[in-house]
Structures are given as C-alpha cells and as structure tokens.
C-alpha cells in the first residue's frame, strides 16, 4: 500500500466513492460487518454529540467549542484499531478517538465548561490531555514512542494535528526525531482544508502533506479521510508497521471541516457556499451509510438511535453541569507535587481575603 500510494505519485488512497461503491477492491480491508456497524454507530454518536454541543454553546452553557462535524470517519476508523494500551496524544478535533480511548463526554463537556478536572480522563488509559498550542503535542508522541522502544513494549502512539499545524517547527522536529529514533508513532494530519480562516495553500506549497514524510525518511500516505474504509485500511496497515517494525508513519487524512473553526467563528467570511456544497457530497457518514445499505447491513432505526444518543449526551452534559463547584484549593494544589511554602502562603492569604470579603462586601 505504501509503495503503491507513495506520496511522490500524488495519488490519494480511496476505497469507496461518494455513493459508497467500492472502487478499489484490491485494498478493500477485511472488516467484519459488526465492526462496520459499530463504526457507523460510533460516528453517529460522535456527530450527535458534536451537533448537540454546538447547541449547548449557543445556549450559553459551555464556552467556545471546536466542532468535528464532517471529520468523523478519521476517528471512526482509528477507534476500531486503537488498543487499550496504545497511547493517544490528541490535538482537539478527534472526538471519536477520545471516546474510543474511554474519555467520557462528561469530561469533554467539563473541559469546555472550563474545569481542568476534565483532563484527568479517569477511564482512559494512556491518554494525554488536549493540546492547545498547535503541533507541540507531536513531540510528546515521539517521546512516548521512545519509551515504548526502550522498554520493548507492544504499544503504538497515535497523535493528531491539523493541516495548519504542519507549518509549525514542532511538526518538523517531532516527525524528524521519530524518523531518526525509529519509534512507533502514527502521525495523523487531519487536513480539513483550513486552519481557522487560512486555506492549506497558504500553509505550504508542497504537493501534499503526505509527501512531507519523504523529508523524514518515513512512510507516508494521503488518504481520503472521508472514506471510512480507506482510513481503516491505512490505519490498520500503519499500525502493523508501527507495532512490528517499530516505525513511524505519516497519514494525511483529507477531509473537510463542515462547521466553523469554533463556535466563535463565521466561515462565510472566507469560503463559498459552492465550496461547502462540493465537499458535502463527500460526507463520510452518508458514504458509509450508502455502502452499508448496498450491503444490506444498515439494519437499525437510525432516528431511534439518534434519539437515544441525544438522551445519553444530554445525561452526560447535565452530569458535567452538576459537577461540583471549583474549590479555591484547586487553583493551587496541582501546580506542584511538592508545593512551595510561598504558594501555600498565597493560598492562605487569599482565603483570608475571601473571609473578609464574605463579611465586608454585601
């Protein structure tokens, strides 16, 4: 696969077309029907949650939120492959992968409600908090990869970044170190065509993002990120390479951010309706559904499912809303494991002030 789709050939790896028809039998992965159904449901759950979250934001119940809408197949595929012991080093737009690792919606909501407790990720093994400074997380993935190699563990690191993020120096250093150290890291670039308002053509003049793998002597591939099967096959193969050879891989997942950058963003300022419509035809869920229908495995009541999902999402949202208040001590106690005396003193003084305020200010 990596030979045939060597990024130098400038070919995108695709398996089904926009109508869900298999156009690349050779590489059609063997996926159990149950897995396909599960993947679709995972994606549907993620999309349902994502759309609802935007609603919550509009209602003023959370702060700014970056939607995943349109990019679900990427995480949908990773979710079927990533294991409990594998590491996830996220960016901030791969909801489905977080859920697969065991991060809960409640935690995610808590995060966008502005509480650090979210990132404990209590039910998720080997999962790192969301990274806000673009591309900086990729180096963490490489470092984790080194530990896996050093201790000869059977693990793979999955890490994510956007097309915009490939412009940062840290992208270069992370993939380069991974190439030199030969560590099992799968770098997934979600090329959703924009970094906020900036199109990929302003980020780089390179023919593709996948081709950047050549600069690091590692395998790379450009995949139709809205094609579940292509993503599944590419990630599966990458996983094998990472696990068996201990080598890094760069996957460019070509997709489209159907929504705004965040709930504060207005994409009509910088892109056209025509463009949006063009990409609409590639919607990953519609394509997968069409495939499933043709295979007669779309045998569930989607409306009903969505209704259930909405309830579940809401339940978790309310749980996040009911999360206990932010105690003063939480401002201080996680700064250090061994807290400096002076910081303790700052806390004491602040508590004294709060006591004063409680009586002095009505």
């Amino acid at each position, binding site marked *: 696969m990596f030979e045939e789709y060597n990024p130098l050939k400038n070919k995108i790896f695709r398996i089904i077309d926009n109508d869900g028809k298999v156009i690349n039998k050779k590489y059609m992965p063997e996926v159990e029907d149950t897995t396909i159904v599960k993947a679709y449901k995972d994606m549907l759950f993620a999309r349902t949650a994502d759309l609802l979250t935007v609603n919550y934001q509009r209602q003023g119940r959370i702060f700014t939120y970056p939607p995943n809408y349109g990019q679900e197949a990427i995480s949908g595929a990773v979710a079927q492959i990533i294991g409990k012991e594998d590491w996830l080093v996220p960016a901030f737009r791969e909801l489905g992968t977080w859920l697969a690792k065991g991060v809960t919606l409640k935690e995610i909501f808590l995060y966008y409600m502005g509480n*650090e407790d979210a990132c404990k990720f209590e039910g998720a093994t080997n999962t790192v908090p969301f990274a*806000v400074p673009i591309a900086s997380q990729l180096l963490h993935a490489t470092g984790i990869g080194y530990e896996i190699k050093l201790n000869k563990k059977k693990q793979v690191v999955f890490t994510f970044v956007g097309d915009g993020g490939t412009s940062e120096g840290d992208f270069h250093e992370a993939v380069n170190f991974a190439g030199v150290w030969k560590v099992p890291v799968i770098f997934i670039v979600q090329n959703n065509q924009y*970094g906020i308002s900036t199109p990929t053509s302003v*980020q780089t003049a390179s023919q593709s993002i996948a081709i950047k793998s050549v600069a690091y002597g590692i395998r790379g591939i450009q995949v139709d990120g809205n094609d579940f099967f292509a993503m599944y096959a590419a990630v599966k193969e990458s996983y094998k390479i990472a696990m068996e050879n201990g080598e890094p891989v760069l996957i460019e997942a070509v997709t489209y951010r159907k929504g705004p950058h965040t709930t504060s963003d207005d994409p009509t300022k910088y892109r056209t309706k025509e463009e949006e419509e063009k990409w609409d035809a590639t919607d990953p869920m519609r394509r997968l559904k069409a495939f499933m229908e043709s295979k007669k495995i779309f045998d569930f009541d989607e409306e009903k499912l969505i209704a259930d999902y909405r309830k579940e999402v809401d339940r978790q949202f309310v749980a996040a809303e009911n999360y206990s208040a932010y105690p*003063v001590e939480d401002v201080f106690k996680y700064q250090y494991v061994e807290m400096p005396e002076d910081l303790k003193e700052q806390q004491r003084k602040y508590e004294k002030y709060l006591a004063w*305020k409680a009586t002095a200010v009505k």
Partner: protein
Amino acid sequence: MKIMNLVNAINNALDIKLKEDKRVLVYGQDVGVEGGVFRVTEGLQLKHGKERVFDSPLAESGIVGTAVGMTMAGLRPVVEMQFSGFVYPAFNQIISHVARMHNRSRGRYPMSMVIRMPYGGGINALEHHSESFEAAFAHIPGLKVVIPSTPHDAKGLLISAIESPDPIIFMEPKRIYRAIKQEVNEDKYNVPIGKAAVLQQGTDVTVVAYGAMIREVQKAIVLAKQAGISVELIDLRTIYPMDKETILNSVRKTGRIITVTEGVRSFGVASEISQVVSEEAFLSLEAPPKRVTGFDTIVPLPKGEFHYLQDAHKIFYEIEQTVKF
C-alpha cells in the same frame, strides 16, 4: 472625533500607518481575509492589498523571524500573535534577534518592528489564552513593552510603536477590547512611549496599574473614597522603559504604593516597581510597597479563573491594609 473601542482604535492606527507609510506591513495568522480572530485588522486587506496585509502560515517563529528580515531590508512590519499565549514558539527570534540585531550590527540594522498580541484573562477562554507575560519581555534588553488601557492611548501608542526605531512588544488587554468606548480623534496623533499617565490625583496611596487592571482600580477607588481614602492612580502604559519619575514623584507625596497586575506574582512587574521605589524613595515610604497580582500559578480555566483575577474588592482590601499600616 468618533466613538471607538480598543479594537477600533488599533484598527484605525494600523490603517493610518498603512496609508501613510508604504514600508508598513501587517501580517499574522488569519489577519488578512478574516481580519483577525478579534477583528482588529478587519477591512485592512481590502483597503491596502494582499501584499501588505496578509495571512501567514501557522508558525510564530516564522512570523517573527521573517519580520526581522523584512525590517533589515527596510520594511516596518507589524505582526500579530493570535494570543500572547502563543508567542512562545517565537521566543528565540524575539530574544536572539528582535532584541539584539541593532546592537549586534552596531546600529546598522535597527529593529523598527512591532509585535502585537492580545493578552490577559477574563474572557472565559481555554488554557493558554489568558496569560500576562509582560514581565519576561520587560526583562529582555533591547525590547520595549507597551500596554494601553484606553482606545485613545491604544491608537496613539501604536502609532508611536510603529514609528519607533526600536522594537516594540505591544500587548493588548483583550478583556477590555470592546468594553471601553471613548471619543477618539480620527486624525493621526502620538502618545509617547515611556511615559506614564496620572489618571487621578490622590494623597494617601499611589496605585500603579496598566491594561485591563486600570478599570478595576478605578472601581476600587470608588470604594476607597467611601472609606475616606484618597488614591493616586498611575497608568504605567509602558512597562519598559519604565517612567520612574512619575512613580517616584507620586510616592514621595503619598508615602505608599501598591502595584496591580494580572500576571504571576513572583518575579513580576510589581516586584520591579516596588523595588524601584524602595531603592529611590526609601525615606518617603511609610508602608511596605505592596503587590496585588495573580498567584504563582497557571491562570485557571474559566470556572476557577475569577479566583486568579484582580477585582475591585481585592484591590480595595490591599489599599485599606496599606493605608492602615
């Protein structure tokens, strides 16, 4: 005159300088088509062209480093960091080149460039979107650090910054980007760099602040007045070089000083101001110079952020304590 908020005033300053000086360029992430995430550069690309107002790749070191080159070649770039919390990848370029090229080249390449960035908390933002790192910039020799607190000053200071032959870190208190409105002259004018402003005369205690803290201090002054305390308020406006004279004159009169800043307490701006006063007005001091600042902690996420921020009560509390000393 026109009613402007800080965003309008900064936009206006950029517009004026782009129009009058062909060497001026404006670029950064999303500043072109989008007009910046805070809309500070809105409309400028349309007016001044894609070659002078444009989106850059997502790379802060790249933005600042290329600006260093442009400046050497005679341009006067005004670059934007989307948030001050994302300036760190550019730190090497700032400290190693922006701050030093003039000295290294013995005057041949002055770094007449401006790095703009919204800073500070209070907008319910994600991690890294709320920081106040001015103390570290002020500690770097070769830089000048400017922070306006009003639309009027923002415009005049930014114009002075763009015209300055020295490199300017221009930090914009995003918490009050749209909160403060004022009549602003639409023509070009300058507010000088390195000069503080006495916003209010008083006799009992001097309070030094800047940026979004000014508004909070003003509220605290109302409380202080009710308690019979007369506060002198100084808006620092430039963090480095600091207007020591204005501060010292005031403290020589009041005998007491409190500095209010958003940033981290230790090794911060307040420590510097206090020490300047201790050193040079020691005998005038009737009480220890005090600091009202953030804690030595990371700015908490929105649910905990109010603990970290300075508000009128916290400031008043310290004013009262200092006056009672």
